[in-house]
């Protein structure tokens, strides 16, 4: 079963069609790329998948379950995690707290036990902190645990955002231009991490302009132009198509 399946997805804004009849799927264990010129509708697709926008037509299935009409927080709880184009961390909170915040989806204690401090609620909190610390050490960031996240360098902040997304233990990871503003060497280091995650069975949808990066990671590539899918398939084949060259890559 594919992890994510978009079928005939459309979205209009005041009569303008931003996304027009788009269908493709994302499979577990693979990195799927989505590229296209600015204004082609990539961000709208991301917002549709993550539930911030309602589709005008079409459906979105997550492991066979229709998620196209449920509210965004609920979508996230279904197991979709994302990173943001410009990093969004809780800058004043410590690195550890940022990662702990990713565990929200797995909270089991009720509001009552949280308000009155039952042992179960306290237990849960300390478990989350331990798990977050483990994640930090896996990414070799344990020494920054108590530092405010805003004080870290750009590359480290990207990693914290990544760890937060992973803390939700997602079934699908949306990466929105994760290497924007990085040079090729830095991008490649991050790419290695993505590859490892995919190998562990995660489904990843990557939106990115850095063609070199996209080509080196993706096993499948979709190209969006003016809201429509103009090409899909194996990356090198897609890159060779005339329509893609004309709309996106240029001469």
């Amino acid at each position, binding site marked *: 079963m594919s992890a994510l399946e978009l079928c005939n997805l459309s979205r209009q804004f005041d009569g303008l069609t931003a996304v027009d009849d788009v269908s493709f799927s994302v499979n577990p264990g693979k990195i799927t790329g989505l590229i296209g010129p600015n204004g082609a509708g990539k961000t709208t697709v991301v917002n549709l998948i993550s539930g911030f926008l309602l589709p005008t037509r079409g459906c979105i299935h997550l492991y066979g379950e229709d998620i196209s009409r449920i509210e965004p927080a609920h979508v996230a709880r279904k197991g979709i995690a994302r990173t943001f184009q410009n990093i969004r961390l809780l*800058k*004043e909170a*410590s690195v550890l*707290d940022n990662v702990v915040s990713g565990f929200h989806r797995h909270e089991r204690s009720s509001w009552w036990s949280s308000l009155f*401090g039952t042992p179960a609620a306290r237990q849960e909190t300390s478990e989350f902190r331990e798990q977050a610390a483990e994640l930090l050490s896996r990414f070799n960031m344990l020494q920054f645990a108590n530092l405010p996240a805003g004080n870290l360098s750009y590359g480290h902040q990207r990693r914290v955002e990544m760890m937060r997304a992973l803390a939700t233990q997602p079934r699908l990871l949306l990466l929105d231009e994760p290497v924007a503003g990085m040079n090729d060497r830095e991008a490649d280091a991050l790419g290695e991490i993505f590859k490892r995650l995919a190998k562990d069975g995660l489904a990843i949808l990557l939106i990115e302009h850095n063609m070199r990066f996209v080509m080196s990671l993706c096993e499948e590539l979709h190209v969006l132009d003016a809201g429509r899918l103009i090409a899909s398939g194996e990356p090198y084949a897609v890159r060779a198509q005339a329509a893609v060259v004309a709309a996106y890559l240029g001469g």
Partner: protein
Amino acid sequence: MSNFILGHLSLFELVLVCSILGYSQYIVLRAGVFSMATAGFASIGAYTAALLSVRIDSPLWVGLLAAATIGALAGAILAWPLARLRGVFQAIATLAFVQIVISIGLYWESMTGGALGLNGIPKLVHFGHLLLVMSMVLYVLITLSRTGIGRAFDIIRQDETVAVSLGISVVKYQRLAFVLSGVLGGLGGGLMAYRNYSLVPEDFGFPLLISALSFVVLGGRIAVFGPLVGALILTLLPELARPLADYRLAVNGVLMLLAIIYWPYGVVDTLSLHWRQRRAVRTQVEARS
């Protein structure tokens, strides 16, 4: 010495009542809701408690429980529309709520006594009761801060989009914050009623709203002890600065101004931030060595 304590006991009572109203304001701000409804909740709670005691002679704890419950109810009803609003619009809508409560208090004479207010309310609340209530409030707020609700509030306050992307239902948590604010506001109002002998609708107007806000601003918006410290400073200050009595308004204003400009996180948060950074630097040094 005992005379001094006796003479100022009512002052410390006031500090505690004020802090509970401060906490009503604190809890919404912590969840990123820009509500100013505390004064309205307090009004509703105070009238509930006072009427119960004056009309049917109900005991202290029943009155306070009723005040908190009705505050929660008001919070829950308000939360439904208000969770849809953002930023200054939330502030304006809650300001309107406070005005509506005052207007009704003045108009509904048969119930509230209109501008005459309710008088001859027995003084049921004493320092001991207040200490007890305050410790319960602090206990709940501290546990809340250390568990899931506090985490969710902190994330929502800092970045709603991130909160949603992590599966936190912003609307649901902000409603919770409204209800908690209603409970604390109602409770604070009930305590006010049982301490002040009399109530008039305008006890719960603009000045109260500003005080509740300034306790939180001066004390701190994140650390649990912030509003208590804020209320302590702002309530004791006028007593200590008696010679400045005629310029009290100005002193208060200057203090608010200085606080928000120079200690933007409030007294307690600034101190705890400082302490945390020092600790972080220390652990880093240890990690390196």
